[in-house]
């Protein structure tokens, strides 16, 4: 009897092929896999018969280029795995909040997004299930003592950014602890996908995190293509990859500009602010929307490129590359800038590993994690080897990862534009397979974006799970602040630039 299943990115499997393990066997298998360097990419539940929950663990085995999938069944109480596997701590809290289950022995058991439980019954924290919870209403970690004070910021911040609440425990100017409470952006998206795909589902996927529209919509398309066994044609895949790299470029360039602004170095801040818009405008040339709305469709892409548009994009890219390099190198050649970034907001490789961090922040701490390399799909070449890593995990390294990735992405965009496969860009879709599960992972600009779709007997979604890279990385930001000055917070925050709504969903 097989205990667990291995599958590849963009694969589908009938749920009957996946055994429901005893929780104890599930636990042993999961921890064993973790010892063998697998890490949690998604961990979620769905309601099963008689008040029970089924839990699915999707573990990435990066160097084997596949995923281990485990499934178990639990009742209203079960033992927490977080003490043995800290990567799970938010995933377990999420499950408790969604289904009103108590997870015994969880060391940091608090609500995540402050919504009512999705199924009738108790609330995990004994709150009135008929009342909508108050966001941020929980016990915050506190430090007491002489000259110790608390700084509370948000949810409404000073700039044009999304809302979140931050509590700093400080001794003088030094931050001893930062706790981040999110949920203000919670829009209840995952339940909206149930019973789908609906006509609005694609548009809702596009706003999971607006700056990662291509990342999320690519995953959604992959899920539908896997479940309907009707893959996108090569040309469609190439245009998606092109859009994904343009998304990465716009955001990375914007982040370098924002960091520059926070350091008070205005030339790069103003140049990059504009150049970011130029990259968004390239996406708009392809599909009419600066954020790539409507570009990625199940089965391919909604907009094709003709030769004249392609040449025009190549010409503009050549000019933009010179301007981007000019603006960015100025920043990295200024000693006063480097002095401000150096050694600030350290996240060690061990911490990044323990919390299961992904993307830019993980690579800055020395973890080789890039799903374009480990789980290649679509137009990414089999031998994708442009993985960028740094070692110390400070603000400088997180910024430098962006600089190096910007240059890589520019050459990748050029390569994709010059070598567009011929043929159709969009293929018709078939209905979805019933009682099946599909997995899709895309390396969004922040890090790996994970979607898992499960269908019912009629081929409609009965659970659709989204894991934005921000979900894994917000803890990294909290850790980065330890022992730093509160004035370093803006720099640390920008160097992570995490999504609030991607976390809150």
């Amino acid at each position, binding site marked *: 009897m097989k205990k667990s299943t291995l599958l590849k990115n963009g694969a589908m499997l009938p749920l009957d092929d996946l055994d429901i393990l005893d929780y104890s066997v599930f636990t042993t298998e999961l921890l064993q896999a973790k010892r063998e360097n697998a890490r949690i990419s998604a961990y979620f539940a769905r309601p099963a018969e008689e008040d029970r929950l089924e839990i699915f663990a999707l573990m990435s085995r990066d160097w084997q280029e596949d995923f281990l999938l485990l499934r178990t069944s639990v009742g209203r109480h079960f033992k927490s795995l977080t003490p043995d596997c800290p990567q799970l701590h938010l995933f377990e809290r999420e499950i408790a909040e969604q289904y009103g289950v108590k997870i015994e022995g969880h060391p940091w058991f608090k609500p995540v997004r402050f919504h009512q439980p999705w199924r009738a019954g108790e609330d995990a924290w004994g709150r009135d299930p008929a009342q909508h919870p108050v966001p941020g209403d929980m016990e915050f970690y506190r430090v007491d003592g002489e000259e110790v004070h608390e700084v509370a910021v948000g949810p409404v911040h000073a700039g044009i950014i999304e809302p979140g609440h931050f509590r700093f425990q400080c001794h003088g100017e030094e931050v001893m602890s930062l706790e981040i409470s999110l949920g*203000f*952006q919670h829009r209840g998206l995952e339940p909206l996908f149930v019973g789908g795909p609906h006509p609005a589902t694609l548009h809702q996927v596009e706003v999971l995190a607006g700056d990662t529209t291509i990342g999320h919509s690519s995953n959604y398309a992959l899920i539908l293509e896997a479940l309907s066994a009707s893959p996108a044609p090569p040309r469609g895949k190439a245009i998606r990859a092109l859009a994904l790299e343009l998304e990465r470029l716009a955001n990375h360039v914007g982040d370098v500009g924002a960091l520059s602004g926070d350091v008070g170095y205005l*030339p790069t801040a103003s140049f990059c*602010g504009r150049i970011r*818009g130029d990259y968004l405008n390239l996406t708009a040339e392809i599909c009419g929307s600066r954020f790539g*709305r409507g*570009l990625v469709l199940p089965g391919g892409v*909604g907009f094709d490129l003709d030769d004249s548009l392609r040449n025009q994009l190549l010409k503009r890219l050549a000019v933009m590359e010179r*301007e981007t390099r000019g603006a960015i190198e100025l920043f990295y050649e200024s000693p006063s800038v480097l002095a401000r970034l150096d050694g600030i907001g350290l996240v060690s490789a061990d911490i990044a590993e323990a919390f299961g961090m992904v993307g830019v922040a993980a690579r800055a701490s020395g973890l080789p994690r890039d799903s374009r390399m480990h789980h290649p799909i679509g137009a990414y070449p089999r031998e994708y080897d442009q993985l960028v890593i740094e070692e110390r995990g400070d603000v400088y390294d997180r910024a430098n990862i962006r600089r190096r990735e910007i240059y890589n992405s520019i050459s990748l965009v050029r390569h994709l534009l010059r070598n567009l496969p011929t043929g159709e860009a969009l293929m018709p879709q078939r209905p979805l397979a019933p009682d099946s599960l599909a997995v899709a992972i895309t390396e969004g600009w922040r890090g790996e974006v994970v979607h898992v779709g499960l269908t019912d007997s009629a081929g409609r979604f009965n659970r659709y799970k989204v894991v934005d890279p921000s979900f894994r990385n917000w803890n990294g930001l909290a850790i980065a602040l330890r022992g730093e000055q509160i004035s370093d917070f803006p720099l640390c925050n920008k160097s992570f630039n995490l999504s609030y709504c991607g976390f809150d969903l």
Partner: protein
Amino acid sequence: MLKIIPERLRQGHRTGKFPKEEPVLPERFRGAPLIDPNRCQSGCTECLSACPYGAVELKGGKPQLDLGRCLFCADCPVCPHGAIHFSSDYRLASRTREGLLASAEGHQLASALDGQMKRLFGRSLKLRQVCAGGCNACEADLNVLGTLVYDLGRFGIQFVASPRHADGILITGPVTKNMRSALLETYAAIPAPKLVIASGACAIGGGPLCDSPEVNNGIGDLLPVDLYIPGCPPHPYTALDGLLRLLGQL
């Protein structure tokens, strides 16, 4: 320092010429709709069911598109007979909710503030932005207004850090249950008289999140809205155009 100067010269002067010159938008940009009721087939109601957001209505048998509900979807299949197309006209903002109803005659562009309000805000408007569930696309394209291309400051408009410094509030997002009280408290902290601006399909009517139990479907009756800026997200020029019309600068 010596490297900054040649780089500054090479990057050049980039402030846009708007509003003296019309901006050049991408060919595939989807802006104000062109509605041709002559193409309507009698008895056909396909457009009513084709839009998942209910943006189309038939008024006296003629189609009417609600720009506040419309996401300007790329694959808009709303009329199989081609009665509704999208032009590249970025001018969408309106002062009233009804003004967003576009018919064959177009929609009602935003008019200027009158009397005392225009005297107060016409040459200097400070706005506090509140993201109430926005996906960060609206927010990103509002931030862009501060970059040197759009250079909002030259029109006397500025986003400020505190509601106490603000003349109005600009809201994005569908107003999640979890942001509702923070939004109302921020509004209350702005000294009167004050303006309310709803930016993006979410803030106007819930956008793609419409009818999620966790959102309020936009500002609705929570606050009196003075300017609606449609789009998902609105193009920076759509927002800039709306703001300048509100202040009587266009």
